[in-house]
């Protein structure tokens, strides 16, 4: 029965969340290197140089999209890592609930605690029946815990999906912007 109440692999969720955060950190480092290079160029060229400004708008747009994408990757990774923690707790709650179901001589039908079919003494049947509400509440605790975590994750994923879509458009707009000729 172990593992049948709460589905999902918290380790895989944590791994993909960690990968997102690592990539976010790398992208931020590259964005900073680009900023440093631009600052260095601006300092050498001076404030009145038009060559320093070559492609500035396209670079600024791409840089903004790069940083925003890195920020949102970090947020998405953190959300997945939080979900992984919640899912792991849900698995533990689920295992405890399943042990309680088994210990009470009851059965799980999906997330519903039921009495088993078959012959039982009146005393035994009454004993089982009396335990159903308490055992059901343990099952509900596990499923509600994971249900809330899934709701939170879905809302975060939906919000960040919109954000990534906007970053794609911004990156495309930078690509379509014509660069002035160098040194003109």
């Amino acid at each position, binding site marked *: 029965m172990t593992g049948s109440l*709460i*589905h*999902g*692999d918290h380790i*895989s*969720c944590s*791994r*993909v969340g960690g*990968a*997102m955060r690592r*990539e976010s950190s*790398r*992208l931020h480092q*590259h*964005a900073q*290197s*680009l900023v*440093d*290079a*631009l600052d260095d*160029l601006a300092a*050498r*060229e001076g404030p009145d*140089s*038009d*060559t*320093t400004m*070559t*492609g500035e708008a*396209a*670079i600024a*747009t*791409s840089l903004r*999209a*790069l940083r925003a*994408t890195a920020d*949102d*990757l970090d947020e*998405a990774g953190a959300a*997945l890592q939080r*979900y992984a923690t919640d*899912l792991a707790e849900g698995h533990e709650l689920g295992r405890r609930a399943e042990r309680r179901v088994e210990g009470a001589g009851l059965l799980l039908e999906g997330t519903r605690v039921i009495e088993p079919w078959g012959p039982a003494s009146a005393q035994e049947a009454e004993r089982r029946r009396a335990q159903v509400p308490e055992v059901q509440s343990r099952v509900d605790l596990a499923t509600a815990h994971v249900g809330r975590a*899934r709701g939170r*994750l*879905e809302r975060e*994923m*939906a919000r*960040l*999906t919109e954000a*990534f*879509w906007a*970053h*794609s458009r911004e*990156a*495309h707009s*930078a*690509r379509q912007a014509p*660069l002035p000729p*160098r*040194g003109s």
Partner: protein
Amino acid sequence: MQAVHRPEPTSFDAVVTALARSSTAALEASHELLAHYNDTGDASTQRAVDTLIDHAADALRALTDSLADISSELQA
């Protein structure tokens, strides 16, 4: 004759290189995202995560292209 002002080569090249490296990093990040398996344990939640990963990878590929294009055009 008016002097044509050109950027100092080392600084300019550093910008071009930084753009190219950022482009490569964005491409590698998109591959990394798509390489990972994950199982949320729920169909609706899984769709939300998969959709996010697809859009994040799209954004990273768009960045890959824009950064590479700018780098190439500045070099030209």
